[in-house]
């Protein structure tokens, strides 16, 4: 029925955006059930999905308007189109927020970053507001045919840079920051391919579909990383230790020291929070057993290990929680794998309480 009253372009656009909506709703529901360490990250990601959902809905409305199925005045057309542009700006800003937060988990740095982009974002918004009344970037003629001016493409390229630059920064950051080793770049290329490739070259408005596929792949990445998480403590689990063992064996992880905290297994959630607060940023705590938290590190000196040990002991003692702490350094001619094996052998022993 629809194909007889709509062109192929309209048909493809509506179906593609319908699929995008279903996909985005599915990811939204699934990701709400994930228990991540950082709930802020989940909220920011959910906001991205909601904005992308809004965009997909607007693409359908625009397509129905273009096909003449929804009657629309000239101002109505300008407002609908402008709303879609503002949604794209919102997506752009939320994208910068998500990438920044995912890379650095630092609200302070995010605030400084947003201060830097606020002026260009405000200028772009202003352009689109003025455009509603002047049509200097895009306009509709008397037959409600949509036309973009050269200036629109300039603004669009600037918006595209807002999407691409964080991806380039991520690629550079991955080389130096182990904490984001599970944050892959692959999903973003899919989205960009859709947005730049199909959207610009063809008449089909399928950007939202491309974005939703990209977000689905991001969600898959998050779930992949999630399998290394111990659900009770939020620390890494033994699967992660196996993963690190492979990296250590292949000399991709320089292991120089290890620490072990033995605590009572009951109320491990609160105990783990106290331990986590005393650990340096570069420590990756692993729940090795019900009552044992292991952390591996690159540091080669005893004094930092001693500091952490003292701070954890003091913190847990103040809370009335008994703790035994042990740490050791890799010997000079020992490989990382041999050191880990030696340390874990002692850790598995019942009486490993000495430093």
């Amino acid at each position, binding site marked *: 029925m629809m194909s007889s009253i709509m062109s192929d372009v309209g048909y493809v656009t509506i179906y593609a955006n319908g699929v995008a909506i279903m996909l985005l709703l599915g990811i939204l529901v699934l990701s709400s059930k994930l228990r991540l360490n950082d709930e802020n990250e989940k909220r920011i990601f959910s906001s991205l999905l909601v904005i992308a959902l809004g965009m997909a809905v607007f693409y359908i409305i625009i397509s129905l308007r273009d096909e003449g199925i929804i009657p629309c005045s000239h101002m109505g057309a300008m407002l609908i189109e402008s709303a879609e542009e503002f949604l794209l700006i919102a997506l752009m800003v939320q994208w910068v927020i998500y990438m920044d937060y995912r890379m650095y988990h*630092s609200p302070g*740095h995010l605030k*400084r970053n947003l201060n830097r982009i606020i002026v260009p974002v405000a200028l772009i918004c202003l352009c689109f507001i003025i455009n509603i009344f002047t049509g200097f970037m895009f306009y509709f003629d008397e037959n409600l045919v949509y036309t973009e001016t050269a200036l629109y493409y300039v603004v669009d390229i600037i918006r595209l840079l807002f999407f691409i630059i964080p991806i380039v920064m991520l690629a550079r950051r991955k080389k130096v920051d182990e904490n984001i080793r599970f944050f892959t770049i692959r999903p973003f290329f899919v989205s960009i391919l859709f947005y730049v490739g199909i959207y610009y070259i063809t008449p089909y408005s399928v950007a939202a579909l491309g974005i939703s596929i990209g977000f689905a792949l991001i969600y898959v990445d998050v779930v992949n990383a999630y399998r290394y998480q111990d659900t009770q403590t939020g620390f890494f689990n033994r699967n992660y230790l196996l993963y690190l063992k492979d990296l250590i064996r292949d000399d991709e992880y320089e292991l120089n020291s290890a620490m072990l905290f033995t605590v009572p297994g009951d109320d491990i959630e609160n105990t783990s929070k106290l331990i986590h607060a005393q650990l340096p940023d570069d*420590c990756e705590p692993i729940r090795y057993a019900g009552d044992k938290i292991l952390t591996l590190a690159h540091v080669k000196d005893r004094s930092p290990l001693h500091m952490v040990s003292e701070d954890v002991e003091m913190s847990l003692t103040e809370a009335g929680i008994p703790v035994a702490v042990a740490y050791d350094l890799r010997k000079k001619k020992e490989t990382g794998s041999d050191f880990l094996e030696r340390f874990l052998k002692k850790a598995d022993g019942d009486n490993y309480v000495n430093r």
Partner: protein
Amino acid sequence: MEIITLTDENIADFSAYVDEDMQDEMSRIFYRGIGAIDDSDTPVGVLIYELKDCESEEDTKSRIRVFKCENEDVKRLLMKEYAESIEEEEVARSFYETEDEHMSRDLRENGFSLEVSEALDVVITIEDIKGISKLIRVKKFPPHIMSLSEASVTQYRAFVKNCLFKGRRGLLDDLAYLPMNWFEKDISSCAVTDDKIDGVLLVKKAPSGMLFALLFTAFGPDYKTNLGLLMAYTAQNIIEKYPEDTRVVIRRHNAMVKNLTDKFFAQRKGSDVFSGNRSEA
């Protein structure tokens, strides 16, 4: 003649051989001192050394900071005592760097190598620092850059842990043991993000009035920007709070610091020093 262990309690008795700045250093955990006194308890010689890398699995090294003695007997006795002490500490190599020609000659006689080179330390003046302030003009510092006095002890300790775990200690082998108030808090600066220190420029004021820049590092996403801001902040504070004749010592212990001093203080060079080393294996 008798050999005694020097501590921060008796070091003042050896003031004829050890200046006030070095006396102050004796309170640090890796400094060791041996003194020689004659039959009337008058100091006749001193050897002070600093242990390096003694808490890692790397070879421990010893840097001889002071070696002064009245005569050959004292010299022999001090070196013998030194050899025994460093054997207990499992020191693999000793080295020195000094402007004192007598010290270098005495060490040379005891098996140390000798070469003359440019000192790693450069001494800069307030005038030089005013030059930096012109290069890095900051009208208003962002709120996250502040003096160390505004940070808490808890923040400082957390920062030290982070720093050490990243392998950054500057010139401070004993960073883990230094309290926050060991540094000159009003001119030392820090960058604070999310309530955590993620960058510092730590300066120590010695008893003589000389300022020593000891740790200059930053990490996190804005580390490059913060390094510039920290330098400008400390520079401004030094200009405001210290007299014109104040001297600041920067030790060019790695390539990064050397590049920095070459860029900002190209006119300043290190003095000629005697340096050398000896294997203790």
